[in-house]
């Protein structure tokens, strides 16, 4: 589907990554490298959340960049560059999961024993060997990861795009091939599920907020 001239103009002006991609379209290798550098961490993180393995995520991220390169001549800025990139990533992740499911090689969602009886996740006792604050941080990470793992594949993708890529419903819909209204429902269900799963932990008060703050500030423990 071709984008209108005004759309192309809009995204070319508004999104520097679109301009980079247009240079890639014109065979500018430096621009391609710049895009790889700008997006690699975000892309690998997104794919790692989807697949539960950083190694596999790196491999798939390279596959995504290869597809970007191969599609460069057909590229038209009908959306933000990140939306286009994550659309490719979503397809690659779906294919990878299908392949893995066929092989029954690994449990793709590392810990999703029961999707039906949703119960709040109970924190394990902090290790006596670790300072309390550090143990709390590690525990928080584990618990949040467990909760995210229990989301469905689509819920997880929508959550990651909204939370970490700050995409709007329309953009998430574009990436995932859904109507914005469907994204709205999907995200509402996802957030409710997270709320239920994390309830036990959250009821412990403000611990989360302060832990996250100290993490961001690089506080040692």
């Amino acid at each position: 589907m071709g984008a209108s001239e005004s759309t192309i103009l809009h995204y070319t002006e508004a999104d520097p990554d679109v301009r980079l991609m247009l240079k890639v379209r014109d065979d500018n290798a430096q621009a391609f490298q710049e895009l790889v550098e700008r997006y690699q961490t975000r892309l690998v993180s997104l794919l790692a959340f989807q697949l539960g393995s950083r190694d596999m995520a790196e491999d798939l991220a390279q596959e995504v960049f290869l597809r970007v390169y191969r599609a460069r001549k057909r590229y038209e800025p009908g959306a933000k560059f990140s939306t286009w990139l994550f659309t490719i990533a979503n397809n690659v992740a779906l294919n990878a999961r299908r392949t893995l499911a066929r092989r029954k090689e690994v449990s793709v969602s590392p810990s999703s024993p029961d999707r039906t009886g949703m119960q709040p996740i109970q924190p394990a006792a902090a290790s006596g060997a670790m300072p309390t604050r550090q143990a709390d941080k590690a525990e928080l990470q584990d618990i949040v990861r467990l909760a995210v793992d229990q989301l469905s594949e689509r819920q997880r993708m929508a959550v990651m795009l909204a939370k970490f890529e700050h995409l709007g419903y329309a953009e998430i819909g574009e990436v995932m091939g859904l109507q914005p209204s469907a994204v709205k429902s999907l995200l509402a269900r996802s957030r409710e599920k997270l709320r239920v799963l994390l309830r036990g932990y959250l009821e412990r008060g403000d611990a989360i907020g302060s832990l996250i703050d100290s993490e961001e500030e690089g506080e040692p423990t």
Partner: protein
Amino acid sequence: MSDSSPNPKRPHQADQDSVREQLVAYLDGELSDELSQAVERQISEDDAVKEEIQSLDQAWNALDALPLASTSHDFTKSTIAMVTMAATQDVVNATTAMPALRKKRRWGMAALLVTFTAAGFLLSSLFVSYRDRQLIRNLPETRYAKTLNQVVDIEFLKAWSEEASKSIPSSRLTSLTKEAETWQMLSASPPTERFRWTEALPPEEMTQLSDQSIAFQSLTKLKQDRLRELNQQLGESDTADELRRYALLYEQLVSKLPPIEQASLRNMPTDERISRMRKEVRRQRDRLLLEMTDDEQKLFRQAIDKVLERIDAVDDERTDTFIREMYRRRYPDKKISKEQILLLKMRGMARIASMPETDSERRPFSFAKVNPELWNSLQSDLVKALPSRIQDEIAEAKNKSKQTQMVLFLIGNTLQSTSTTDASTYFAEELTQKEQLEYLSLTKEEMQEKLEERLSSEMLEGFEGRGDLLNQRRGRGPSRRDESAPWRDEVEGRPENFGPPRNGPGQRGNGGQRRGPGPNQPRD
């Protein structure tokens, strides 16, 4: 956005989802100003709604605790390199049939990327494709998966090395030293060195390694972890070098057994397994002593070729005709090659020369021109090309006839291992359509194995015990399960029944690969 108005009152159960959607959309900044204000009013008026939106927001904020995945330090370089390779390949594919002028234009990005990559990243030393990444990471376990899988656990390996050191001469382990060193090196090397090592492999070996990688990747994670753990335990052992050699030796011995026996061994307690292997060592001992590395086989192959040249120089048309006729009767649809005639002549000469004088009347009449002295000289040249440990073994044989049988066994083995005939060409050109269909019904590995077996059986006609043309026997090739030493007639009672080992791989030399079909995939 879907903008139905929020219900001003506390909703019924059926409306809860709809309200939650509005609250979440509000938090996500997806509502219009008007709807946002309505939600804000609701929050200020209804504590339950306020509590709900707070807990939703809190859970959302908790996601900030998730760490972003970091990428490996060479991610950009390897990505650019991978894309460069793909770009180059695309251009090659696209321009193969193009006129020269148009070809040039197509090179745009590929040429730029290549230049860019070459200047910035030294492509040759840094390129790791996304698929190769897995291979490099698991290189030692991938390459030695079959060995590790057969060994199963370190305690058994220690017990086995003790047992084998008593019954197998240490000279036998010499041929495994290089491979064990490669194993050690790969286990201890960082990824860059592993990559350089793979880069230096010849294409054929790289392909095989790639197959092994696919096989390794298709194992369950548990199994992969087990093999990694065993490899690590091996590396940590005080006698790691020796244990690796005994592990390789063990795998060589066990791979000659039927799969069911191999599986049964893997599941046996150590004591029982050692006892079973004691018997197997006795059975295979002599054959083991004559195995050569790839490099040794290459040298011996050169000696064989020289001997064939000398036989070719003897004008003996009558024997040629005799061999052609025997071959035609055996394979009415096939034409015998010159190499096959020479091999059969060599075999005939050797047999005649090693016959006791009393058996002279059994000599085929057509070998009138065979001069036993000539064979003695040829055999002597052949033996000189063998590694000294094997020369010693031959020298210790109880008589000349046994020595000749050992030499012929080595020739058969070497010809099979160094054959350059391609199984796929053989498949396409030599098999009937019916035969092709039969082969195609097999799995890829089975097909390759059976093709290679049949190919070598036909190529080495005359070096096979059963179906020996010169003995006028009938039958289709040798038994797959005949692993004992052929020259030991006291073992088998069938001294002429020799030929290359048919089941399982041969030696691996310096970076060499196993002969034999299919990827190096361990069996469960």
